[in-house]
């Protein structure tokens, strides 16, 4: 009886994770081990002998390395600008840097074409340049901009924790400001840099919207898997491509995981005095300022041009105002809008609550297989969205679990994709929690369950709000995993935008995007409110933990 009570809940989570994480993953791997109806490594052999496939891997990895490097550098510059200088433009940069949170990557791609395309407002109309926008360069630029939020938060979380006394000690020993930055501050931030690099690498590998829209001829493993599945329904090749892609992602994630643990064991002390500003020389300051200004201008430009594209007739005809693109919403969009809000709300409630429950089980209630549970919950984060989508499409379109076509499969998929977020935020909440209060509750005779509901939950509420809203925002934007699961009855906005983009209806896509951004922006507003009660430092810590969406 006691053991049932103790192990019942973990066993239930194990069962669910096996069914909805391990089973679809294995289905894809098994499918890739199939060639023309026979089992064997035929598909892989076929792939590895084709030069285009080698080029595909090289392209994907190079672009991921490039984006990871550039976005980490950009994140570092912006982070130093905001937290280490007293420059007046910090607010603007801070605003620009959270924009990618509400603008989905493929929407940025649209406005990017609008501004810098072959007939773009800036490149063609203003400067009369003709450059080939549809190439890997555009993918690199857009991913760098898009991932800068993540890198900024990860680096900032470490940077604000750097003890100003350490920096002062260096100053007292005669170091100038540049030496303080390069020999004291940056080495201390290194774990944050490495984490930012690895996460960006992972996200770039898994990103499929950006190369699809602006890549032109440039294909990645993720886009090719999509084309193979949607174009010719070649499940074996699509699965093999996705499996290769996942191997890269798992390696990057494993390195990130190790790095994170290392950076945690290397604990930075709580800030005592004010922010430790650096008085950098004029040259360095002006470099930082120009990076910050350029970044903010481009981000704001991209945001504004989404609205321009939504309210003007079409690129070729100049800028004439129209409501036309929004007409599609009452005709087909209400359904998607309602679905988006409902699905995202359900997802964020479930993931935040159960994320905390699982974190509590893993860290406070000892049971066999705790590490395995930890791994299974976190795994979906390392799995590329398209891989997970293919897995769900293949695994759940036959009995015993016939879920395809239902709204449940969409929600289940987003829940398990977002669960790592809830789990990690729960974990970090529990780590910051004072153990003695829990112990006091248990010593006074309350059970673990009672302690959870009466002590942990109320104390964690403000932090939970932040992570819930974050989960809400990321699930409104989800595309890669859902593209294979959507049927006429359960459409969501992100897929509507993608479809309109593929059809070439830029105006409709932009109109849908405006709506999606308003839904997400409402969420960001809530984060800001919730954040007021948690304080800047812990909010950054938490947000940096959550940058895995």
């Amino acid at each position, binding site marked *: 009886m006691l053991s049932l009570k103790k192990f019942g809940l973990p066993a239930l989570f194990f069962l669910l994770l096996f069914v909805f994480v391990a089973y679809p993953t294995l289905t894809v791997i098994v499918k890739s081990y199939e060639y023309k109806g026979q089992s064997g490594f035929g598909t892989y052999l076929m792939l590895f002998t*084709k*030069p*285009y496939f080698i080029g595909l891997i090289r392209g994907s990895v190079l672009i991921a390395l490039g984006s990871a490097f550039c976005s980490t550098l950009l994140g570092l510059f912006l982070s130093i600008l905001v937290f280490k200088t007293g420059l007046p433009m910090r607010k603007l940069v801070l605003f620009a840097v959270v924009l990618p949170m509400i603008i989905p990557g493929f929407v940025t791609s649209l406005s990017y*074409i609008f501004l810098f*395309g*072959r*007939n773009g407002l800036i490149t063609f109309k203003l400067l009369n340049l003709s450059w*080939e926008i*549809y190439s890997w360069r555009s993918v690199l630029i857009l991913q760098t901009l898009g991932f800068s939020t993540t890198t900024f938060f990860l680096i900032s979380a470490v940077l604000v924790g750097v003890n100003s006394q350490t920096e002062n000690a260096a100053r007292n020993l005669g170091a100038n400001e540049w030496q303080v930055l390069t020999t004291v501050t940056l080495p201390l931030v290194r774990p944050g840099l490495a984490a930012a690099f690895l996460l960006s690498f992972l996200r770039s590998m898994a990103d499929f919207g950006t190369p699809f829209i602006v890549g*032109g*001829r440039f294909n990645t493993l993720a886009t090719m898997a999509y*084309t193979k*599945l*949607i*174009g*010719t*329904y070649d499940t074996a090749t699509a699965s093999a491509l996705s499996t290769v892609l996942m191997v890269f992602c798992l390696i990057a994630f494993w390195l990130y995981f190790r790095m994170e643990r290392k950076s945690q064991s290397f604990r930075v002390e709580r800030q005592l005095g004010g922010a430790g500003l650096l008085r950098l020389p004029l040259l360095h300051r002006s470099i930082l300022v120009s990076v910050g200004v350029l970044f903010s201008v481009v981000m704001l430009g991209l945001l504004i041009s989404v609205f321009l594209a939504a309210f003007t*007739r*079409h*690129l*070729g*005809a100049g800028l004439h105002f129209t409501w036309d693109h929004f007409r*599609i919403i009452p*005709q*087909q969009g209400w*359904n998607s809008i309602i679905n988006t809000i409902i699905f995202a709300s359900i997802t964020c409630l479930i993931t935040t609550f159960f994320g905390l429950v699982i974190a509590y089980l893993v860290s406070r209630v000892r049971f066999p297989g705790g590490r395995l549970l930890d791994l299974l919950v976190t795994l979906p984060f390392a799995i590329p969205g398209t891989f997970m989508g293919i897995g769900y*499409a293949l695994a759940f*379109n*036959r009995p015993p679990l*016939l879920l*395809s*076509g239902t709204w449940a499969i969409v929600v289940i998929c987003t829940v398990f994709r977002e669960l790592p977020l809830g789990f990690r935020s729960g974990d970090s909440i529990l780590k910051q929690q004072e153990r003695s209060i829990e112990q006091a509750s248990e010593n006074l005779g309350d059970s673990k369950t009672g302690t959870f509901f009466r002590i942990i939950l109320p104390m964690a509420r403000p932090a939970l709000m932040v992570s819930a809203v974050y989960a809400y925002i990321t699930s409104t934007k989800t595309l890669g995993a859902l593209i294979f699961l*959507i*049927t*006429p*009855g359960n*459409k969501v906005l992100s897929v509507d935008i993608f*479809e309109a983009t*593929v*059809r*070439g*209806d*830029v105006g409709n896509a932009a109109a849908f995007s405006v709506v999606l951004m308003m839904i997400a922006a409402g969420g960001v507003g809530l984060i800001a409110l919730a954040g007021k009660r948690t304080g800047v430092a812990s909010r950054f810590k938490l947000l940096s933990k959550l940058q895995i969406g």
Partner: protein
Amino acid sequence: MMNREKIVDSKIKFIFQTTLILLISSMLSMSVMGIEPDSEKVLSMYVAYGGPDFIAREFEKETGIKVKYLTMSSGEVLARLRAEKSNPQTDIWFGGGSDAFIRAREEKLIAAYHSPNRKNVKPMFRDKEGYWTGVSIVVVGFLVNQERLKQKGLKQPENWSDLVDPSYRNEIMASNPNTSGTAYTTVSGVLQVMGSEKGWQFLDRMYENIPFLEKSGSAPGKKALAGEFAIGIAPDPHNLPLRNPGAPLVPVFPGDGVLAWPSPVAMINGAKHPNNAKLFIDWCLSPKGQVVLMKASPRVPTTDVKTLKGVPGVSDLNLVAYDHLKWGAAREKVVEKFNDRYPQY
């Protein structure tokens, strides 16, 4: 004991017989009285056709049946139907390339339905055994953006043979035959007209001018509309200029042969709302439905209704006698050859 068992037995027998009789009689009465809508008044469609929202609304007005639809390319529909074979998620496949419907018929993904209105459709635009029926035909031509053409100092292309001119390098946009019916018809149509060897050589030179390929057949025309490219190879080139009266866009029906294929409607095998699906097919082929379809997407109709202004009739065009049965069956081979020949896409 024996008696009681017998009584139970005969009771079961009675219940069984009555249900059987009821079932048969209801089925008979249905076939006599025409099709009644299903109890659930909804219809789910995969659509590769322009203006689906308008069509859905008009059909609902007429019948009270609510239409839910998802738009995608015909290759995508085929992929989805295959994936959902054991548990179909949709009732109707509406629009796209006839080649994909021919494949779907072979794979038993669609079901036969002899709509009484099929007699209005010319035989070359429908399947003999009723699996699919063309609601309109799609013609392939060019959309030319005059402004961009002038800026780049280019000549107006009039024929397919003009597209291989090196001066058009990187100014032509087209779609990918892996996913687009328009692109597949272009490739196979060229092969039919020029023969295999000369056809591929021609395509080699044409694709040199096209920097990359779009997934959807309608996207290249929209890129020409947006002024991103001078020329887009597009289905129904008269369509976009009609909808965007101010745009500097001119449709070109190539003088050396216009390619065309029927755009069919079909019921899905195992549809959850079969009667609603049949009503929809009847309606599409009725004079009233044909006018609605034309208003939604100004295509050349397959029945004898008057065309809208700006829409050419079948006799106005130099149509190639495109053998859609042959090329529909050869699709996989041709696409594979395409992929091997043009690995850059």
